[in-house]
């Protein structure tokens, strides 16, 4: 999925997949921080967002 989106010119970091067990609250927090940082670095989504006109 991510591969084809990247192929189409959408930044890879806009899609994330992860695997967290229900006992891993700290991992959850780490992953949220990581993703949040990456997406902030990318800025707002412009590629696939629908602009109603």
């Amino acid at each position: 999925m991510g591969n084809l989106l990247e192929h189409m010119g959408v930044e890879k970091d806009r899609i994330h997949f992860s695997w967290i067990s229900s006992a891993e609250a700290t991992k959850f927090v780490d992953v949220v921080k990581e993703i949040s940082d990456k997406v902030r670095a990318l800025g707002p989504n412009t590629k696939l967002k629908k602009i109603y006109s």
Partner: protein
Amino acid sequence: MDTYTKKIREIAKDLLASQKVDRVIGFEMGTIPMAARPVSIESENDAEKLVFNSLCAMNLANYIRKPKGTIAVIAKGCDSRNMVNHVVEHQVDRENLVIIGVPCHGMVDKSQLALEVEGEITAYDEEGQTLKITTAQGELTFEKQDFLKDNCRLCQHRNPVIHDYMAGDPVTEQELEDPFADVNEIEAMSQEAKSTLFEDLTKNCIRCYACRNACPLCFCPTCFVDESSPQWVGKSQNKTDVDTFHFLRAFHCAGRCTDCGACVEACPMDIDVRKFTRKLIKDSYEMFGWEAGLDISKRPPLDTFNPADPDDFIM
């Protein structure tokens, strides 16, 4: 390819006369020059309608799902792979299907040929590897090799994978140095360049869904574009909606697409829809070593679990 036509007619006549099949699905010449269209015949007298030439680029696997009775169908290499797909995906029983295999020399890219000649094409004929085009200016001849469709140039399975009858001797398969050169080229581009490329690619799309209707893989009872609650994709020609449609349609073909080129053939706006599916063909080959429709006894990779499946995209 006249020998093919002759042989196909013979086999079809024989099958219908002996009532081994209820109908034969093949091609007949259309009402305008340079067009072959699918036809279903039920009587042996109609067998003379059947033809096979370099214009038969549509995929007849599209017409064999859930058949009433037994059907015979004409299959090029790529079509036969789609028929394997259909059997694997339980769309048709192998027992109800008689496959008349045709070793394929590639199909002609009509729009490319139309660019080459001035004015309207009034007649078309082919002899071996030579194409004869008649226009108002007179008769012109072309080498078929120069006007092959893009997917036929990259085809590595010209001979039918499964067949009950063969309409000719197998042809030699093409040896390609790099079957995914076109995909690699796009992959090497910058993200902005890719974005522009696909923007240009889909900007002419009129959302007629001809690519979907021509594709043998698209057999969902309700397609996601027709669903209205929730509505996954808008019906307008808005750029996002068009991209979403093409992306999702391609993704539904992941690990199943045989690169038959029916989508491109059907497109009235000459959009190279294969730019999307080619990437998925490459990925499924590199990640799972899988080429669609080659083995009737194997389940597709997105259908099965293997501990060795790639999972490095998971954080």
